[in-house]
């Protein structure tokens, strides 16, 4: 009977509270230890596939990749010269007619930045890449590049990468994460539209009539 002398058993509800608190603390500690684990090299993940840090300094980095059965010249010619593509684009900037070094951001990109963005080509390497960056006083600073890589018999791998840094975080963006997700999805859609146009001559639609929504 020694074990029962002078003690009041702890109520079950308290056990549950302490148990839950201990579990949460252990889980939080585990996550912290895992994320600070020195063995994890966040730069080792290929391309944009790092598990935790898809950023470069203050910039959030996002992008998309497709393979197109065409040469880099053909792909670039379609991107820069096929006006049928431009109204369909959500995020991928397209060339401004009169000034060869200027790109126009599509409407989605303009909406996200709230003010018009000028985007200027800053580097070009034939058959390899086109890089651009935004100018002016929009709410975001954006850098992007379109890169072409030979993908053997499958065609040319086309990768677009965009790095975005909001100037005034709270005023312009819904949240950075939501923006990055929308941007990534939109860029993938844009590259797929580009592929459709190059490979098939048209952009797939299930509409039953030209005037249908």
């Amino acid at each position, binding site marked *: 009977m020694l074990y029962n002398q002078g003690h009041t058993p702890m109520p079950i509800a308290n056990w549950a509270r302490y148990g839950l608190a201990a579990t949460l603390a252990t889980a939080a500690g585990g996550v912290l230890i895992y994320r600070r684990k020195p063995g994890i090299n966040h730069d080792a993940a290929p391309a944009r596939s790092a598990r935790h840090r898809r950023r470069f300094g203050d910039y959030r980095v996002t992008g998309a990749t497709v*393979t197109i059965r065409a040469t880099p010249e053909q792909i670039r010619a379609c991107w820069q010269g096929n006006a049928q593509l431009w109204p369909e684009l959500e995020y991928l900037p397209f060339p401004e007619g009169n000034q060869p070094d200027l790109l126009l951001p599509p409407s989605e990109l303009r909406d996200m930045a709230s003010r018009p963005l000028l985007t200027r080509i800053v580097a070009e390497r034939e058959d390899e890449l086109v890089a651009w960056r935004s100018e002016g006083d929009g709410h975001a600073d954006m850098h992007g590049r379109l890169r072409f890589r030979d993908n053997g018999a499958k065609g040319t791998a086309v990768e677009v990468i965009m790095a975005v840094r909001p100037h005034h975080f709270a005023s312009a963006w819904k949240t950075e994460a939501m923006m990055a997700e929308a941007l990534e999805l939109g860029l993938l*859609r844009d590259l797929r*539209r580009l592929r459709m146009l190059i490979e098939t001559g048209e952009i*797939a639609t299930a509409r*039953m*009539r030209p005037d249908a929504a």
Partner: protein
Amino acid sequence: MRAATFQGKGDIDVRQMPDPAIVNPRDCIIEVTSTAICGSDLHLYDGVIPGVEKDDILGHEFMGRVVAVGKESTLEVGQRVVVPFTIFCGQCFHCSEQRYSNCDNSCPVEDQEVAEKAFGHPMAGMFGYSHLTGGFAGGQAEYVRIPYSDVVPLVVPEDIPDERLLFLSDILPTGWMAALNAEIAPGDTIAVWGCGPVGLFTILSAFQQKAGRVIAIDGVKGRLDMAEQLGAEPVNFHETDILDALKQMTGGIGPDAVIDAVGMEAHGIAIDNMADRVKQAVGIGQDRAHVLRQAIMACRKGGRVSVPGVYGGKADLFPLGAMMQKGLQLRTGQTHVRRYTAELLDLIERDVIDPSFLISHRLPLDEAATGYRNFRDQQDEWIKVVMHP
């Protein structure tokens, strides 16, 4: 135009819908002369395939006459065509290798994301088969817009009736590909689960591809009778322990190849299937994979597993250990219809096969709701429904 539309689970209604028109330069418009209800339409009807919306026009087995062409179409007005259910561009990497149902370009980009999340990659477009496959209007209608009409439709001769050609749109090539995927060697014993239209064409195809024996498994007597007429040995799963029977019938070895022509809505009262039904009903599982499990267990060591039956989600208790330990090979996929149509049309033209034996009921389009209901609920008699708009 009139069209059979999805109004909700178990609810099909023929309604007035806008006529289609040319949208893209490679399009054509056809006037449908014959259309059929497919077993996989029942997955939509039963609400087990996601992404179907109210007023969607159903139907992916159809044929008709060209009534309008886009400026890049190679067809001419008046030509008679059978239209494969898979829409494909003909130019992408997958199409270049004749894997048409894997086409990268035929599904509109706005509809690619759900399938990409579910399956890892987006699917090709299909007619009348949910927004997972593009939300294209289907062929149970008076008119249909056909994208990529320079490569998708098969132009067919005028002197062969619709009913012998219609099934080139889906189930005949599907049965053919299922048999090809089983890699049948002359004299092989093949077990086919499901004696619906695809299962029966799989049996027909297996014999064409030199199978020695075909064992047909189903629970509906009328369908087993049809399988027997094709030369198969019928086994009724209501009366027979299938694994035991297959071992006995093959001298203890097991079938050389097994073919699951049932898919995600397996019937029967096996314990695993009942559990799958509950999970499907409450939305925590999507596929009732009893047949696939049984087929894998039945297949001989080193054998082949071919799956033409449609699966759309996840399956529990998948016997991966049996696959690995017995060294089985599994091949499956939506049918690359156009890859096989020329060969099959040749067999029809030479009277080697006549697919019209399958048709049990002919209805006007206005009776689509009756056709769907009876095709699902009276499987003994309603083997295949063909409708004429």
